[in-house]
């Protein structure tokens, strides 16, 4: 029996495991294997979490659900307190979060409580001479920083879509316990949901982004139709120019002052490729560019390009993708 070494902090919404949790367990497993220890997966919730019993498949030795009536929704202070206590008493070498909206808010609170170093939004984790070493993009991906984290536990949050879930079955023993305490002073009253099924650009496996070339806000309809053809796997992103112009919400902005994304497929439509935009999407696995200007910088980072009128090309692409999913 190996000693507990990595605590994986997972996320649920409405009592169901969020998909990014599989990535967190996968990253935690990688670290635990390097450290020679086990993975404890931790969930905070109001009750049982759907999907928790499947986490053994991705490498969790144990799945612990801590329940509290105030923990159904994210409770920043309550969560931070419980996780910090658990991390301190469990003797963990590392604590792994998702670099999601919740994880990026929660991890710094836990780090400050523990007096430990935190590396957010990492794209690689490893162990060198017993120390946790991470790689994380800086300047929105124009450079990579390799950092060694001193002290125990080391805290990291993992960039979504980078740690592809791998099945490495472990026991996945399920435990559950009630915890005392309140949500804290900061209370999430409710979530105002976006349109049903809307994916976040930072988490979607496919991102279809548009820029000035769309000419006017209403024309984003052609991109929404293309995204819809991917049957729930694609989100619509936007360049800074069109967000600044008020065509699209900031939540959709890809680039240095927006989101840095790493989808499997990134389709840049009518985006010339300003350096701050390229910084935000260059870690995508495959990039497709559609632009009428053959000299646009976007073609320098694109794996595949089509030079042409997007209003002709995109609907044709939508038809082809629909056929695949038909």
């Amino acid at each position: 029996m190996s000693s507990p070494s990595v605590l994986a902090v997972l996320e649920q919404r409405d009592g169901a495991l969020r998909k990014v949790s599989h990535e967190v367990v996968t990253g935690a497993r990688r670290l635990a294997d390097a450290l020679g220890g086990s993975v404890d997966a931790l969930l905070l919730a109001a009750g049982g979490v759907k999907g928790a019993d499947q986490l053994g498949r991705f490498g969790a030795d144990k799945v612990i659900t801590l329940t509290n009536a105030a923990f159904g929704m994210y409770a920043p202070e309550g969560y931070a307190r419980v996780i910090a206590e658990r991390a301190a008493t469990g003797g963990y070498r590392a604590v792994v979060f998702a670099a999601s909206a919740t994880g990026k808010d929660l991890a710094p609170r836990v780090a400050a409580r523990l007096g430990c170093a935190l590396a957010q939004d990492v794209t690689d984790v490893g162990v060198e001479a017993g120390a946790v070493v991470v790689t994380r993009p800086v300047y929105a991906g124009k450079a990579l920083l390799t950092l060694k984290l001193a002290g125990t536990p080391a805290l990291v949050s993992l960039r979504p879509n980078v740690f592809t879930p791998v099945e490495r079955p472990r026991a996945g023993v399920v435990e559950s316990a009630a915890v005392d305490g309140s949500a804290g002073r900061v209370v999430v009253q409710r979530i105002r949901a976006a349109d049903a099924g809307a994916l976040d650009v930072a988490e979607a496996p496919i991102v279809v982004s548009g820029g000035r070339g769309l000419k006017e806000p209403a024309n984003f309809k052609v991109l929404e139709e293309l995204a819809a053809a991917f049957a729930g796997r694609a989100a619509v992103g936007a360049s800074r120019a069109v967000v600044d112009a008020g065509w699209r919400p900031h939540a959709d902005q890809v680039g240095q002052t927006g989101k840095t994304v790493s989808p499997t497929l990134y389709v840049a439509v009518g985006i010339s490729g300003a350096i701050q935009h390229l910084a935000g999407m260059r870690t995508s696995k495959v990039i497709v560019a559609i632009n009428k200007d053959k000299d646009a910088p976007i073609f320098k980072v694109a794996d595949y390009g089509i030079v042409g009128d997007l209003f002709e090309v995109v609907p044709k692409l939508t038809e082809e993708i629909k056929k695949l999913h038909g």
Partner: protein
Amino acid sequence: MKIAVCIKRVPDSETRVKIAADGKSLDEAGVKFILNPYDEFAVEEALQRKEQAGSGEVVVIALGPAAAQETIRTALAMGADRGTLLQADRIPADGLAAATALAAELKGGGYDLILFGKMAIDDYNHQVGPMVAELLDLPCVTTVAHLEIEGGKGVAEREIEGGLEVVEFPLPAVLTTDKGLNEPRYPALKGIMAAKKKPLDVKPAALGAGRMEVVAMTPPPDRKEGKIVGEGGAAVAELVRLLREEAKVL
């Protein structure tokens, strides 16, 4: 309302990153520095809150090199009342070290609000604001895109995956600001002139030992040379074939 805004001097977002000879940092030669864009929302929010309250003070605090005085002057030109530079030649990679120095300066300041940008566009650390809140035992909401404050209570909205979280909190509090919260003003000439005469303290930053060592800064891996599949709608079928058979992403 007494409001502190913590700001940072960062390279402009159009900067072409060149790595310095030490292999661990940015070569700053020829780089234009600006006020971190997310911090502009924090400064603007502070100014609007003070204006609505009809009285108060907006204090800007920066941790950074001597040149960050210029960044503070930018915020003063927007309308902040005074500034403090916690001077350090290098901003530590360890966000908690920066947070500790800022918390020491903020402690006992009697602020109703302490504002930060949600992150800096250079190190992407995304942590100093909430760490300061924990160190000062203050409530904190991060990445605030909409804010209402009445009496001693606030309601903030923050973007999460697939929606917005509506969050209630008591004052005093620490908030980090996101794009969309407001439209930052440009400093007017009058403001720029006035800023020159506003008080700006400089003192050494109380940075403890860092918990993080920079091993290396490297350029991102080059993307392999791509190809133009073709022109116009006629190229779509071939693109789809390549995505399926060569890239295997469909």
